[in-house]
Structure formats: structure tokens, C-alpha cells
């Protein structure tokens, strides 16, 4: 016991998101996963028992565990993403339980943007529905490296191998068009617990692992880029002996004491004198460490500037292409001023050109549609008021992502991935 606890802080962490259409059994699956790993506490169980009884329902409704808002419990739907935490002796997990309804897709994206793996539930009696495709596409677009399709409600088809294989084949055909290469399929019944934590004795034809086994053992490739040195300056420390110290979070690469570095946008070249964390000096810093970098020379730097290496620079540009997901109920306007945020840098921008919209069902490009509303996924080109220092999203999530903000309402209206 002592040993396993000593290493708890260093334990592997897997962040996964759960998606699926309404009534695919998503909340039941999470409830099952938590229940069978003994991650539900007695007072939580007692509280949902009480509510289930009040509603006159038999048995315990495990969905009440994650539906944290009154309206969610009253309507029996998930509106916004809820986070749940559990651990097994092998790994720590953060679940982002996201809504299945189309109109809450923006909340689904919030939960998925930081995930390593996406669980997508498919009801075997319903087959592939639009939300299956939408969620798969969004997961792949966000660069999630693993998708696990949970083929649920196998109990309703007599645990039929044929039904499973047929749906698997259809999903394979669709997912072949996605960027995510690691795609897996697990037949299960969340309601009865088959293949969630415990192996099912009703599907001996299935030779793969249970869901928990998969989650515990899947190899998590690092989300961090350790090649291209990127340090967006968050804060300039300018007092006494701390002159020329710049605080921030490493967004890529490895910075070492003595390294030659280049500052953007000035392109001035200098060297790293010292790197510090909160209470001590360190020799090197890499993503996602938060550090202060001290430079040899006295060069003017402000928040939003970037420290890089002279031979490996991001693109310095006011014009770039991005895939964006429109998140606002008010449609995208061409030639309207939006605020843009990228790393610690911000400015104003407008959408210069709408290249095409993606048809979620076929993944085809629609080039004529100019009305872009909530949950649409489009490729655009952006012109900004100030230069940004950008990488491709698939190269570095930190320096390849942007958000657009409505200058009037201050609402986040779009999330973009730089191409």
C-alpha cells in the first residue's frame, strides 16, 4: 500500500472523453465503470438512491452521478461536460463526460480538447447515427490518438457475434477516412457489466480486452512536442536582480541553460543565462513546465512574444488557414472583427475567406454553403491585426490552436486548428 501511494503523484494519467448519441447508455457506462472499480462512495450512492426512490424508479439510476445540474437530472439529459476522477493500481483517470445532444456539441468539444482517448458509444440496435460520425470526426480533428468504439446493448441482440462484426465493419469503413489510426471495438453491455470491468461469459467469441483493461494498458503517446522549442512569454518579471526574467509555460521543445535563443517578433538572438522554477534553479525545461527564463542580454520583451531557437522558428504571419468549429448560436460573419487568442498572444482578426464546410455524414466538402452556424466545421483563412507565431496543430497543439471571441459579447465563438 505504502509503495503504491508513494508513486501516486507520478502515476500515468489517462484523460478520456465519452461521447455518443442520446440514449446510447453513456451515463450508464460511466456509472458501471465507477461502480465496478469501487470508485463510488457510500454517501454518493445513498444520495442517488434517495433521489431514484423519490422519482419512484426501481433500482439505482447511475446517470444521476454525473448529471450535476438540476435541469440535467429533471430532464434526464447531459447539458454540459462533467468531470469524474478515479484510479486503479495501474493508472489515474480523468473522465470528461460530454453531452450527446447535437445542440450541446460545443460542450462536447470542451471536454474532448484535452483528452488522450475518446470512447464513442454505439447502440448495437441502432447502428451508426449522425452523432457517431460527428463525434468521431471531432475527436480525430482534435488530434485524439485513440478511439474506442463501445458497441453497447449487446444483451438486446443476444450477444450476437454477427451483429457485432457487421457494425464493426461499417465503423471501420467510416473511420478509415479519419486521421486517428488507433481505432478499437469492444462489444459490451453497460447495463449488465459485460466487458466493462469484468469479462463477459456470454461473448466467448470476443478475444480482446475489457474496457478497463484497454484503458489501463493503452500506450499514451506524449501530447507534448519535445522537438520544436517554443516559449510564449506570459509575464515579464522586472524587479531588481530579476531583470530580463520571463515567466511562462514551455509550449514545446527543451530549453537548456546556455542555449542560443531567438526572440520573436524582434528576431534578436541571445543566450539563456538561467532557468528557474518556483524555488530553485534547474538545468533544463520542457513542456508543460512553468518556469522563468533569464536571458544574457537586455532586450525588450512583452507578453505574447515568443522565445524560440534561431534554426527552428514557427511561421510568423498575419494570414493563416484553419479548420474551425463554430460554437456560437449567431452565425459566422465575413469581414466582421473578432478577437483572436493564440498562446499568450492576442489581437483582432477577420475571416477573409470561407473555403468549405464539412458534411459530417460523408466527410465531403461543401463549397457553396455560406451560412455558418453553431456546430459547423469549416475551413477558413484568417487575417489578423498583428503577427502570430504559429505551428501546424498536428505538429504542436499549444502553438497550433486558436480561439475566436466576439468583441461585443465576449463569448468564445470558435475554436480553430491551424493548418
Amino acid at each position, binding site marked *: 500500500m505504502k509503495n503504491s501511494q508513494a508513486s501516486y*503523484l507520478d502515476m500515468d494519467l489517462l484523460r478520456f472523453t465519452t461521447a455518443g448519441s442520446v440514449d446510447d447508455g453513456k451515463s450508464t457506462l460511466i456509472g458501471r465503470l465507477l461502480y465496478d472499480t469501487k470508485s463510488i462512495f457510500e454517501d454518493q450512492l445513498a444520495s442517488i438512491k434517495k433521489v431514484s426512490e423519490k422519482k419512484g424508479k426501481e433500482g439505482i439510476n447511475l446517470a444521476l452521478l454525473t448529471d450535476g445540474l438540476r435541469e440535467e437530472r429533471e430532464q434526464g439529459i447531459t447539458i*454540459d461536460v*462533467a*468531470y469524474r476522477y478515479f*484510479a486503479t493500481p495501474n493508472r489515474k483517470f480523468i473522465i470528461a463526460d460530454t453531452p450527446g445532444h447535437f445542440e450541446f456539441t460545443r460542450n462536447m468539444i*470542451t471536454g474532448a*480538447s484535452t483528452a488522450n482517448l475518446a470512447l464513442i458509444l454505439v447502440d448495437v440496435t441502432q447502428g451508426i447515427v449522425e452523432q457517431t460520425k460527428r463525434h468521431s470526426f471531432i475527436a480525430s480533428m482534435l488530434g485524439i490518438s485513440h478511439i474506442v468504439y463501445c458497441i453497447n446493448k449487446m444483451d438486446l441482440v443476444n450477444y450476437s457475434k454477427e451483429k457485432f462484426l457487421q457494425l464493426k465493419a461499417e465503423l471501420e469503413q467510416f473511420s478509415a477516412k479519419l486521421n486517428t489510426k488507433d481505432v478499437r471495438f469492444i462489444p459490451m453491455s453497460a447495463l449488465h457489466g459485460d466487458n466493462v470491468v469484468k469479462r463477459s461469459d456470454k461473448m466467448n467469441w470476443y478475444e480482446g480486452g475489457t474496457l478497463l483493461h484497454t484503458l489501463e494498458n493503452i500506450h499514451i503517446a506524449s501530447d507534448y512536442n519535445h522537438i520544436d522549442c517554443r516559449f510564449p512569454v506570459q509575464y515579464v518579471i522586472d524587479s531588481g536582480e530579476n531583470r530580463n526574467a520571463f515567466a511562462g509555460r514551455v509550449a514545446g521543445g527543451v530549453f537548456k541553460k546556455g542555449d542560443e535563443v531567438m526572440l520573436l517578433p524582434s528576431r534578436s538572438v541571445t543566450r539563456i543565462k538561467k532557468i528557474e522554477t518556483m524555488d530553485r534553479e534547474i538545468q533544463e525545461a520542457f513542456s508543460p513546465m512553468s518556469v522563468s527564463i533569464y536571458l544574457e542580454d537586455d532586450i525588450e520583451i512583452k507578453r505574447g512574444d515568443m522565445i524560440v531557437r534561431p534554426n527552428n522558428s514557427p511561421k510568423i504571419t498575419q494570414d493563416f488557414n484553419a479548420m474551425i468549429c463554430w460554437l456560437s448560436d449567431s452565425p459566422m460573419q465575413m469581414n466582421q472583427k473578432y478577437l483572436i487568442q493564440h498562446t499568450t498572444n492576442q489581437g483582432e482578426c477577420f475571416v477573409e475567406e470561407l473555403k468549405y464546410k464539412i458534411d459530417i455524414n460523408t466527410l465531403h466538402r461543401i463549397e457553396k454553403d455560406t451560412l455558418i452556424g453553431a456546430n459547423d466545421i469549416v475551413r477558413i483563412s484568417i487575417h489578423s491585426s498583428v503577427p502570430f507565431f504559429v505551428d501546424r496543430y498536428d505538429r504542436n497543439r499549444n502553438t497550433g490552436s486558436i480561439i475566436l471571441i466576439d468583441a461585443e459579447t465576449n463569448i468564445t465563438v470558435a475554436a480553430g486548428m491551424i493548418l
Partner: protein
Amino acid sequence: MHVDTGHNFSETIAFRDELIKKRGVKLIVASVQESIDKGRVEEESGIGSSRNALQTTSLLDAIEQYQFDCAIGGARRDEEKARAKERFFSHRDEKGQWDPKNQRPELWNLFNGKKKDGEHFRVFPISNWTEMDVWQYILQENLEIPKLYFSHQRECFVRDGILMAKTHFVQLAENEKVTLKKVRFRTIGDATCTGAFESDATTLEEIIDEVASSRITERGGRSDDKRSDSAMEDRKKQGYF
């Protein structure tokens, strides 16, 4: 800033004052007693009364008085189901209200901190930490914490299944008997709504062992959460921290 209900454990206040002295920083106290005296809020009366909900007014008044852009706190998503819905940067309107059904999307580490005058943010940097993470971190960094977290002898009584500390802030019902128990606290709020747990844990290592084997949630002893199934959500909507 500390929102002080005036019903805190004396150990909490002593620890707070010592910490402020050591750090050499200025402490702003938003006092619930003052809000009551000014007639901003009305005190509950009777057995089971608490100033917990009154804190909201004192907090919002102080945020307005000092024109704070944001209030940073240690609330975590694993504490409670409404808190599980929180963003890192959580927007509050000019009345300090939370609109949980209409939160801003929050992607990657790009936090939208734009707001209008009079609005503010609640920022929760350790949103994704669990109770276990917190204790492991305290152990690793050897952080100072109030003695109330360690096992000690205390006069207690049982109310609604929760072990409560006897303090002069709490009015006892006739059938409530006071006994001496060995207890510690897992969360520390106002003395009128914070339950104690029987425990022998006197070191951080023992607390960690206890947290690892506990079958009750951290806030399981918080009577403020138990007033209804939506107690936390309702308070948060009004501006509670």
C-alpha cells in the same frame, strides 16, 4: 481575501493570521457579521441555523468594493457534482451569478478572460486535482496545514448522522448528547456546517492511508451541501464560491 462568517474554528483563524504574518501580505476580511450589522442579510435562527449561505452577499459586496477582476480559489471538480461542471475560468455576470447552462466553451489551455465592467471571474487552478492529489502534494512539499486536519480530542455530538463539533456557535437540541471523541476534519468550513470524522490519523502519511481507504466522500460531512440535492448548484448560481 477571506470571507469570515464569524463562526470559524478558532484554530482556522489563528492559522490564517500566522500565515499572513509570515508572508507579510495584506489580508482583506469580508465579514458576514458586518453584513448582518448593516442589514444586508438576515441571520437564520433556531437549531441547525448557519451563516454559510450568507457568505455570498459578503463575498459579492467585497468583490464590488475592491473591483476585483477575478477571485482565485481552491475548489475542485471532484468535491461535488455541481463543482464537477465548472470551467477553469468561470464567468460571473454583474450580479455575481453563474449560468451553468450557458458556460463559455473552454478549449485546450486558451482561457477567455474577456469581461465587461462589473463582471468578474472565478478561477479554479486546481480544478482537476483529487483529494488524494492534494494530500500527496502537501506531503511532497511539506506544506503547513491547520491542526484541525489531524486527529485530536474534541467534544462532539451527532446531528442528522453527522458528527459535529460542540462550539458556542451551535445550539444543541435537547436529545443531542455531547461526548468526547477522537476526530479530525477532511474539509474545514464554518463550524456550524462542517462535520468531523472519527480518526486516529496524526501524520500526513496516516491521513493519506485513511483517504485511500475511505468509503465516504470528502464533503460527506458538509451539512451545507445536504440541504437539498441542488444545494451547491443553487448557492453557486447566486454567487457562492
